[in-house]
């Protein structure tokens, strides 16, 4: 029972990290129509930017802020410098995915060229340990969960109650129609890259905090979890991604309590393939 409860605790943290990453990914895909596989590479770049700031002798939380800003700017640049020119040419979605894979190699291995291939960790205290009804969580873990909840509430407010959110949803639903209704879609798309890029950087840093030691290729497998969460909820569906992250995050960690930890991602993998094969629109997606 204790093992089970402890794994629920881990699951909550993983789900919290995953939720930030997946909501960013799914909004990015939904609004901009780019299946950006370089998302994981940008995450780890963010984690290493925070590491550099941390190594300079300042708090990792300052590093987190720097990483969010850098990834946000980097994503906007990636879009305006690479993806938008390709899209303007009428490049097919599948070729866009190949371009994003190329960008994955460029970003991920640039990080490795600079940082080296060895695992590193942040210099930070884990804070007090709390026992909450059987769950054992450190201060840092609680902060991650709180951060994630704040982000989810923020995304909810954005999409539901602001003009920008409405414009984003309209652009996601039908770009041409949105443009004809007077929405400046190219600006909405740029803002979306900035926002989701920031979420991506945030996710990268909290991912690195959560996993302790990380290296430039650490997010390769985490990207699988993101994709599983996104496709479970339905690509482009923000609430779907939240649900997907909760299910996948807790399922992988709880399954690790019963099967060897090396195989914990298999559950996520099976979920992803099932969703692709049976219901590609996702649980919350519109019926095809």
């Amino acid at each position: 029972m204790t093992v089970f409860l402890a794994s629920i605790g881990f699951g909550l943290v993983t789900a919290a990290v995953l939720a930030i990453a997946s909501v960013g990914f799914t909004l990015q895909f939904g609004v901009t129509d780019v299946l950006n596989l370089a998302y994981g590479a940008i995450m780890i770049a963010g984690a290493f930017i925070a590491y550099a700031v941390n190594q300079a002798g300042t708090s990792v939380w300052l590093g987190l802020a720097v990483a969010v800003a850098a990834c946000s700017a980097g994503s906007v640049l990636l879009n305006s410098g690479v993806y938008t020119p390709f899209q303007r040419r009428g490049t097919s979605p599948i070729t866009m995915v190949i371009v994003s894979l190329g960008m994955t190699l460029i970003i991920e291995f640039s990080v490795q060229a600079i940082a080296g291939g060895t695992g590193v960790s942040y210099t930070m205290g884990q804070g007090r340990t709390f026992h909450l009804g059987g769950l054992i969580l450190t201060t840092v873990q609680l902060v991650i969960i709180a951060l994630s909840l704040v982000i989810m509430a923020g995304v909810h407010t954005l999409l539901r109650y602001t003009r920008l959110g409405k414009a984003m949803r309209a652009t996601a639903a039908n770009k041409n129609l949105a443009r004809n209704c007077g929405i400046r879609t190219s600006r909405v798309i740029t803002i979306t890259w900035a926002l989701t890029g920031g979420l991506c950087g945030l996710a990268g840093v909290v991912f690195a905090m959560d996993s302790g030691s990380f290296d430039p290729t650490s997010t390769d497998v985490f990207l699988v979890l993101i994709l599983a969460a996104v496709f479970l909820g339905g690509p482009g569906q923000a609430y779907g991604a939240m649900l997907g992250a909760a299910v996948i995050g807790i399922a992988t960690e709880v399954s690790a309590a019963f099967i060897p930890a090396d195989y914990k991602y298999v559950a996520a993998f099976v979920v992803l393939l099932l969703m692709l094969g049976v219901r590609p629109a996702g649980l919350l997606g519109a019926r095809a």
Partner: protein
Amino acid sequence: MFYVINLLIYAGVDAMACLGLSQQFGVAGVTNFGFIIFQAAGGYTAAILALPPKSANGGFQSYIGGWSLPFPVPWIGAAIVGGLIALPFTFLVGRRLRGDFAAVGLLVTAVLLNLLATNYVPLLNGDSGLSLIPQPLQGEYSPQSTGYQWAFVAVALLLAAGVFLFVRRITESPYGRTLRAMRDNDVVADSLGKNLLSLRTGMLVLGGAIAGLSGGVLVSYITTWSPAAWGYAETVVLFAAVIIGGAGNHVGAVLGAVLVPVGFEEVTRFIPTSNNLPPNLIPSLEWVAIGLLIVGFLWFRPQGVLPERKRVIALPPGEGKSAPDATLASVWERPRPPASRPAPAGPGEVVLEAAGLVRDFGGVRAVDDVSLQVRRGTLTGLIGPNGAGKSTVLAMLAGTLPASAGKVIYRGQDVTGVPAFRRARLGLVRTFQLASEFKRLTVMENLLSAVPGNRGDSLRGAIAGKRYWKRDEAAAIARAQVILRRFGLEGVANSYAGDLSGGQRRLVEIMRALMTEPSMLLLDEPMAGVHPNLARRIGNELVALCNEGMTILMVEHELAIMDEFCDPVIVMAEGAVLAEGTMQQLRGRSEVVEAYLVG
């Protein structure tokens, strides 16, 4: 000397792998981001077939199998297993799933299978992989001898050459043309009667077998195989090779194999290693360079170094004079027993019937309870304002869109659940409102791709070779020529369809639909963007076809065309049928005039 041998064998193995990928991705448009899985499977298969039982060598590695089978069984096994493990993936590449989603599914599979193979030791010795894999005939000959090594080179290069000839044979057949058509536009290929699932399955299995063989040859040479050798990124290297060499050109694939995987390994060998450099710097920069090459080539030269070449089909010029009056009707109809030939007198029995068709898009009901009948020998018009649901009805009749409710009955058979390609094979063929030509096929190839029953239009027929399908092909070319002449497009027969003007493309689409030997055509605005004179000519041809027993349902905006050619005319508005009758009758009805004719 050893260095040259090593290089040549890698070149042979990489060329095989790139040819398999070129066939899948370049020719058929199946983007298999998990390609490396198949090479890995071939490698492991060859290893466990050739290895002695695991207790040998002190039992220092654990694996299943270990059958000590003699050469060439391990290589054959590698190819077979590489092909067979493609089968579970076919559910990802059907018509339902977007191509980029399927590609992501395959990529994820590659990542996860690598993770599993790394961590699960009993199956294939986990992370450290298999080693001491026996080389072919190592009992009889000494693998260290120069003669043996050169023989290995010769066999590897011969196999690569064999694979090259094999994929070229498939690509240059009618089946290969169908694959290229599917690559250019899969929805349209489906509507012309091509079974996408079967085509893609064929490509996955074929490419998998080639990749498996390359893996088998590789492990027999390097004698080790571990998960580190087949990370998901290796697939990206092969993609880079095919894109750089020229997707769809098999010579380009071989060139790409020599330039990218082989070239890179060698270039980095000559970079002086310095102790000042971080250990991972050079390999990291190599990956960065591959990423840059992919993005750079896709931007600056997406067709690659050696672009896909154009297939020019020489038309026999003399025939033109001998049969100047060949009518379209004489070439569209498929040969059938005279008894079943319909009497062309007046409107006949109901050919196509829709009963209570409904289609919802999200919360919007685009089509609401539409019932209509189309009788044999009529050119029935379907008009209505924008957004009336005309194209949606057409798509449901053709099977391109599933109906949310209701029934489609074609020649007395309920075809509601029948997929589009099967309806096309039953003779119910549609065209599209938006340009839907196969861009990178010539006009002639566009027409030929639609011909049903060509003996070379199957994997088996393609493998059987040109002699097997030559006559069918010649007959199809002759038929295509008559149609081309009829529509005045003989002059552009060997131009890429993507390079034509808008009006010419509409014509290509109508001609292509006729090549399927349909008994009923569903045309979606066939005269949009066509010069009025030509539109009239098309209209006359369509009427002539109907007089010969063909049935046509045509969506059209142009009232003048409706007036001149269509009878009866069905009017739709807001997702429902408003009225039906001759144009004369319709002009007299106030609700029709309100909804459409004025406004």
